[in-house]
């Protein structure tokens, strides 16, 4: 299988995780595919247009075709008959058909390979008497050059050696360029051959009047010559590119340019490669394409470009004869190179070069009469047609029927199935159609003989004819047929569940006014459709029908069609399905919210529970926020992720306090099926302040310690406050010593230091008194009362007893209510009242205090 390397399919875009193949643009195999308008199309087929025969009384097929050329709007071929040992010239019409044998060009040619004929076409004359010549020369110069003037095949004679005597001319190639006729070859071959050179004649193209008045062709009135390249090296091929004549030798390519004998100049294009033979070159007018000893090249007559890197390995070998062909197809922009494939010895492989995108493709043409074999190509040519034939016969046996869509389906027998024949379809609502562009509704390609009229309207009678078109010419019309179309089928069909009673509502659009609507039904799980009902005379437009005859909870399929007496029923509508009976509506049964704080940002999460009748992915809950009782604002639409319908939404309240709002409220709405508002519409009873729902803000405890004495009755030694700040390290104070069974009441009052910050909450206010019992009594004790004051106003008063002889701290908590009474933390005081009680005779009791403080929380 041929392997070709370069061919990109341009792919733009793509989707995620997808890439075009090939990304860099390579094809490993591309056989029988060719580029067509930027895409890849399967190559077109080949068809036999003519079979060439010799000129005997009972003509027999020739054995080989040497060359093909377009000339005078006809196709000409040179063939060889081994039985007759003749080379023939054949003429065909512009479609390659209707061949005629014009006669023998060269006779007694013992072997096909003895000659390599090359043809060249020129035309001239004037408008009233156009003339043309078809020159036929032998590339090997074994035969004399001939020309066909439209009537006879003549030998070319001219006095090129200027001895006043015409001699037979033996060119190897003849080529017209710039109003001159150019011939190449080793002249006077035989004993004293002269080096290869270019001869050129004037006027070259056939003049309207005979200049010389002699027997020679008028275009050879005057001749001269030029040398090209290395003298003695054979000229292998001639073509034209960019207004230059491209002249190839075996290993060189030259450009010839100018306009007459005084201005001809030559320029070397390549000193290394040239076309291998006379058929191995072609041109698109701008560039010449050739197969050289180093593969295919392209030139604009200035530079040679190697275009064959990837495909050289496809080719076994080339020679200077006729085996390597090159032909340009202008419509497709493709140059076909016909070469020997590397796995074979016949020239049955073509390598197609797309001159626009410069890509290679390969393939072979087949003809095997039942056993496909590749055509061994001996010649190739393209013909720019001017007066091509039209269709050979009209299509016939046109018939029509309705297809499954209720639209007319046409079928016919083609009268001409040749390549390039198309068939146009014509329609009218009246009989006796005259086919034309105005009633053409479609066109099908060669070989296609059916057409579905998808644009036909319903319940309408149409008349049809078809005809062939070929080369812009039309055949006669086929027989005419008519067909009335079916009723229009119902469209927009849908089925939905309904309740009370349970059933299915079928919605549809009636498109056939006042026709009946037949409804069929079946269980979705099994069975086949059966008639359910027929609705009579239904008007056009949106309609519905409730089917309450099914079993609740069952799934049913429905289809509809229009029917009318005397008309063809419409095709069935699309099948739709629904469950009889409607499931309960989704509802929210309860809701609530939680408030959390993270990094100073307060989030309120609203939660809801569903009733278990949610359809996943369909039913939705819309969550609205309402700030300060204002307008609800849609925050999100929650799509059910579970059938229970439970969900939540996090609403970001922001920092506390929120400067934009003081209260928040949520509103929730349940939607069934995404569009139908359900009854459930839950709204929280009242707004709330998320900040108030938060716990206390973070704080650190801070001790307010004595900083001044205000009063003292019984304690020593003043100043008291300086000894009560940090514990025993700064000293202690003591009350009155009680001896025996007795008691003493002492008291003092100290002011407290100012806090570093004002507490933001009224919690965690604690009086801390570090005290002990002194003296010798074991049963005596001290009853303390600590009173927090703001100025002279009592805030809170707490009592405790102390029996311990070592220091311990009593922590006395103020209630939030008590703490909330503090309005000025810079004017706080603590008063300590102690009642020292002696319980034993002869023993002593003394109250000691070493630290006193009011602990409060201050913000971090």
């Amino acid at each position, binding site marked *: 299988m041929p392997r070709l*390397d370069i061919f990109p*399919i341009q792919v733009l875009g*793509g*989707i995620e*995780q*997808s890439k075009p*193949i*090939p990304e*860099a643009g390579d*094809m*490993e*195999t*591309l*056989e*029988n*595919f060719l*580029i*067509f*308008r930027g*895409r*890849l*199309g*399967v*190559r*077109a087929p*080949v*068809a*036999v247009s003519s*079979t*060439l025969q010799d000129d005997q009384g009972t003509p027999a097929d020739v*054995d*080989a*075709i*040497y060359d*093909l050329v377009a000339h005078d709007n006809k*196709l000409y*071929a040179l063939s060889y008959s081994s039985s007759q040992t003749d080379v023939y010239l054949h003429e065909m019409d512009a*479609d*390659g058909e209707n*061949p005629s044998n014009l006669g023998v060009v060269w006779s007694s040619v013992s072997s096909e390979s003895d000659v390599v004929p090359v043809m060249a076409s020129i035309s001239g004359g004037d408008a009233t008497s156009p003339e043309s010549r078809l020159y036929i020369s032998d590339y090997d110069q074994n035969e004399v050059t001939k020309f066909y003037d439209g009537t006879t095949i003549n030998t070319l004679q001219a006095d090129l050696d200027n001895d006043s005597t015409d001699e037979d001319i033996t060119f190897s190639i003849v080529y017209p360029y710039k109003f001159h006729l150019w011939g190449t070859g080793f002249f006077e071959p035989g004993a004293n051959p002269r080096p290869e050179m270019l001869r050129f004649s004037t006027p070259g193209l056939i003049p309207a009047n005979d200049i010389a008045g002699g027997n020679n062709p008028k275009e050879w009135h005057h001749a001269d010559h030029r040398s090209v390249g290395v003298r003695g090296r054979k000229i292998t091929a001639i073509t034209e590119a960019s207004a230059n004549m491209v002249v190839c030798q075996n290993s060189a390519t030259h450009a010839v340019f100018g306009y007459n004998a005084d201005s001809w100049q030559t320029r070397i294009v390549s000193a290394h490669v040239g076309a291998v033979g006379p058929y191995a070159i072609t041109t698109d007018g701008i560039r010449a394409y050739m197969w050289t000893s180093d593969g295919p090249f392209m030139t604009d007559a200035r530079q040679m470009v190697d275009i064959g890197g990837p495909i050289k390995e496809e080719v076994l070998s080339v020679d200077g004869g006729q085996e390597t*062909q090159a032909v340009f197809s202008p419509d*497709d922009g493709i140059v076909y190179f016909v070469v020997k494939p590397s796995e074979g010895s*016949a020239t049955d492989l073509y390598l197609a070069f797309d001159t626009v995108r410069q890509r290679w493709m390969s393939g072979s*043409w*087949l*003809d095997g009469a*039942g056993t*496909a074999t590749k055509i061994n190509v*001996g010649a*190739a*040519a*393209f*013909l720019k047609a001017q007066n*091509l034939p039209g269709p050979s016969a009209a299509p016939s046996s046109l018939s029509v029927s309705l297809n499954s869509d209720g639209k007319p389906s046409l079928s016919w027998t083609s009268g001409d199935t040749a*390549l*390039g024949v198309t068939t146009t379809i014509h329609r009218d609502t009246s009989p006796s159609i005259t086919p034309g562009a105005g009633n053409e509704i479609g066109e099908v390609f*060669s*070989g*296609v003989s059916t057409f579905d009229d*998808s644009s036909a309207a319903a319940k309408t009678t149409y008349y049809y004819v078809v005809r062939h078109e070929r080369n812009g010419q039309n055949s006669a019309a086929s027989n005419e047929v008519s067909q009335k179309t079916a009723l229009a089928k119902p469209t927009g069909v849908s089925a939905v569940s309904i309740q009370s009673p349970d059933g299915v509502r079928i919605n549809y659009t009636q498109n056939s006014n006042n026709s009946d609507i037949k409804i069929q039904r079946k269980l979705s799980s099994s069975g086949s459709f059966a008639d359910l009902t027929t609705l009579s005379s239904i008007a056009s437009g949106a309609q519905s029908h409730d089917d309450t005859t099914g079993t609740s909870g069952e799934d049913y399929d429905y289809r509809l069609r229009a029917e009318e007496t005397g008309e063809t029923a419409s095709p069935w509508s699309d099948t739709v399905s629904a469950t009889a009976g409607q499931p309960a509506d989704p509802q929210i049964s309860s809701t609530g919210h939680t408030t959390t704080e993270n990094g100073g940002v307060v989030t309120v999460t609203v939660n809801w529970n569903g009733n278990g009748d949610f359809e996943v992915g369909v039913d939705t809950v819309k969550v609205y926020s309402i700030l300060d009782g204002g307008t609800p604002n849609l925050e999100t639409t929650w799509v059910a992720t579970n059938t229970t319908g439970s969900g939540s939404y996090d609403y970001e309240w922001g920092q506390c306090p929120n400067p934009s709002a003081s209260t928040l409220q949520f509103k929730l709405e349940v939607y069934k099926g995404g569009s139908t508002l359900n009854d459930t519409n839950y709204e929280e009873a009242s707004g709330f302040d998320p900040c108030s729902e938060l716990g206390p803000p973070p704080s650190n405890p801070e001790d307010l310690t004595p900083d001044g004495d205000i009063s003292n009755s019984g304690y020593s030694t003043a100043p008291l406050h300086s000894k009560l700040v940090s514990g025993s390290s700064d000293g202690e104070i003591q009350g009155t010593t009680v001896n025996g069974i007795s008691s003493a009441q002492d008291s003092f009052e100290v002011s407290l230091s100012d806090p570093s910050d004002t507490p933001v909450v009224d919690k965690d206010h604690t009086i801390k008194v570090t005290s002990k019992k002194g003296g010798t009594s074991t049963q005596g004790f001290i009853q303390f009362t600590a009173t927090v004051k703001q100025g002279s106003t009592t805030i809170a008063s707490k009592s405790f007893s102390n029996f311990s002889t070592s220091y311990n701290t009593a922590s006395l908590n103020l209630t939030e209510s008590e703490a909330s009474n503090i309005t000025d933390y810079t004017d706080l005081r603590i008063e300590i009242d102690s009642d020292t009680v002696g319980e034993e005779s002869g023993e002593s009791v003394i109250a000691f205090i070493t630290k006193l403080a009011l602990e409060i929380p201050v913000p971090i």
Partner: protein
Amino acid sequence: MPNTKVFIGDDAGPKVYKVGSIGVDTGSQDAAGDIYTATLKTERFSPAGEGGLNYFRRVSIRLLKSGSATIVGKVFVDDTQTQIYSGSTLTDQSVQFDLSSSALKEEVIEMDIKAVGTFIQAQLEIDSDDIGGLLLVESIAVHYIPVRSAKTRSAESQ
């Protein structure tokens, strides 16, 4: 309509052949009713690089068509044709697409595959007589999940 014809002559016989126009004269056969098969096989495509690993899941082909057509698609991963279970037997995966006749339109056909490998190739085969009307291949794309990229290394100094 094209009005330029390409002709070829038989090097070993009397016949002159006319070459049809691409895209217009499709749906036909060569001379003597010979059916020819058009084959398109992409080069190796390694989305994760040489040595990388991919999970190939789908090959999609975009076509422009006007008539019916039968296309056979095959996918090769690391030179091995992808396989699919036929009953309990693994067989080579060869997907046949039967495209129905329609108006001129673009159509995408897809081959679901399940293969892990480094490179992938897609192949299309179309018999000439299985095409009715126009059929043009516009693009081929592979859908894959990269598993592991090819290893790379920095340049080495001497």
